[in-house]
């Protein structure tokens, strides 16, 4: 049961219950749909990208606590960042969750409060829940026409 608290930390539950930047972004100039075919989670990420900077970002969709909280915190983390900075953050977040088990993640400082998701690594089937929003962000940044997928 102690593992449960690692996964469902207060910060995650807070973002699940009150997701930030939730809803459509009217003046979005980039958007992408994300889909986890395994569980059916779907979300859309909207970006207002100006001169390579994420001026605004919102998301919409339905998913589990982990995927909703991750999407919510992703929007907070990338707002104001350049495209390159957001992409680096995505890669670090991804590495934190998919790196070898039992090895401490060395770039925690750079992820800030996103490290709250490090516990998800111990729940392999839930890693995709945490990364869906980030895959979708990545697709939106790259203007991909195909929906992002966790597969």
């Amino acid at each position: 049961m102690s593992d449960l608290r690692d996964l469902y930390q207060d910060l995650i539950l807070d973002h699940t219950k009150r997701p930030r930047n939730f809803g459509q972004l009217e003046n979005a100039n980039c958007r992408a749909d994300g889909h986890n075919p395994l569980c059916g989670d779907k979300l859309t990420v909207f970006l207002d990208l100006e001169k390579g900077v994420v001026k605004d970002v919102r998301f919409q969709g339905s998913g589990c606590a982990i995927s909703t909280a991750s999407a919510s915190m992703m929007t907070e983390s990338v707002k104001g960042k350049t495209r390159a900075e957001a992409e680096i953050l995505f890669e670090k977040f991804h590495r934190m969750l998919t790196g070898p088990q039992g090895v401490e993640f060395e770039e925690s400082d750079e992820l800030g409060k996103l490290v709250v998701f490090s516990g998800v690594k111990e729940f392999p089937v839930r890693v995709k829940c945490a990364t869906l929003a980030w895959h979708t962000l990545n697709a939106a940044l790259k203007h991909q026409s195909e929906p992002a997928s966790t597969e």
Partner: protein
Amino acid sequence: MKGLSEVLAPEARRPTLSLDVARIREDFPILKQQICGRPLVYLDNAATSQKPRQVIDAITRFYSEDYSNIHRGVHTLSQRSTQAYEAVRTQVQHFIHAAEDREIIFVRGTTEGNNLVAFGYLRPRLQAGDEILISGMEHHSNIVPWQMLCEEKGARLCIIPFNDDAELLFDEYEKLLNSRTRLVAVTHVSNALGTVNPIRRIVEHAHRWQVPVLIDGAQAIPHLAVDVQALDCDFYSFSGHKLYGPTGIGVLYGKASLLESMSPFQGGGDMIASVTFEKTTYNKIPHKFEAGTPNIAGVIGLGAAIDYVQSIGIEAISAYEEELLAYATREILKIHGVRILGSAKEKASVLSFTLEGVHPHDVGTILDQQGIAIRAGHHCAQPVMDRFEVPATARASFAFYNTKEEVDALVNGIRTVMEVFS
């Protein structure tokens, strides 16, 4: 091997609510373990059921003592294997009350059975403008093969709707049947909702239009006594792994006259009578549909599983599981925020539910941390989820080795979920 019939008291084999579950559980080695420091509570039986020692031992013994290829050797082991393999065919015939053993085709599972009907039976007969009729509560395996055919042939897939209790709207079904209908394909028991469909009536009405009927029996076969002649269905498919048997083995039953009229599904060894480069003559049914070396050990395991189920008695299993489902339904509804999907009058062994404000995947993870295995997701029945406007459900599904104490553990587990999210 000591069958259950030898160890159980005679009264335990009659339809009764007092199965000796403690004794039955001793037969399932996997149930003895702990998950996350708690005793395993396995409630994912609709996905797949666990295997009794009798099945595991039968497969081990077959590989250790009798194994060889079938239908093609004069040596002793090949004869033993062939005999054992064909004996299971007869056993399946009796289990589902088919008229003849040649009406039993061994396939990989329900999915392959459905596809065999789609591509072996319907494809050569289907034309543009024809219709295939399925229900709104089908598993993807009884949707996608028909969509593939419709796309190829320009035919139409028509859907029988169901009401909020998850019962098929029979009037709508009658209206959908017409002279363009070429096949009705309906599940016996819904995997996502537990509804037991009125198969006999469905078949009767289809036959008035001379339309053959395929029944997807994947969820029905472990819970209900199935009599394909009484149902009068034309095809019936099921999987071994949901019936306490191995994976990778299943059965397609078909009426002999229909099977004989069908083209082979796959070409290869064992399905031929003679082969030259100019012409091949196909073997008779059932061998015409069993190309290549089949899952021989799987068939042996399936036979042991049927033996096991029959030693308890399918009626006794049905009655016990019905009581367990009623108890679980009652208890789970006491929790505030629970919504059960599927409240058909005729229902089997499946409890699909949602918790207000909690996604089913979180339910699944938190229950797993308490040793409780359930399924969370769309259950390969996305149209059912759409019908109820939910992205997914949590599903507890029961087998005869489950107990009321395990239901209590589930209910307590759900209360913990609610606490985490309160």
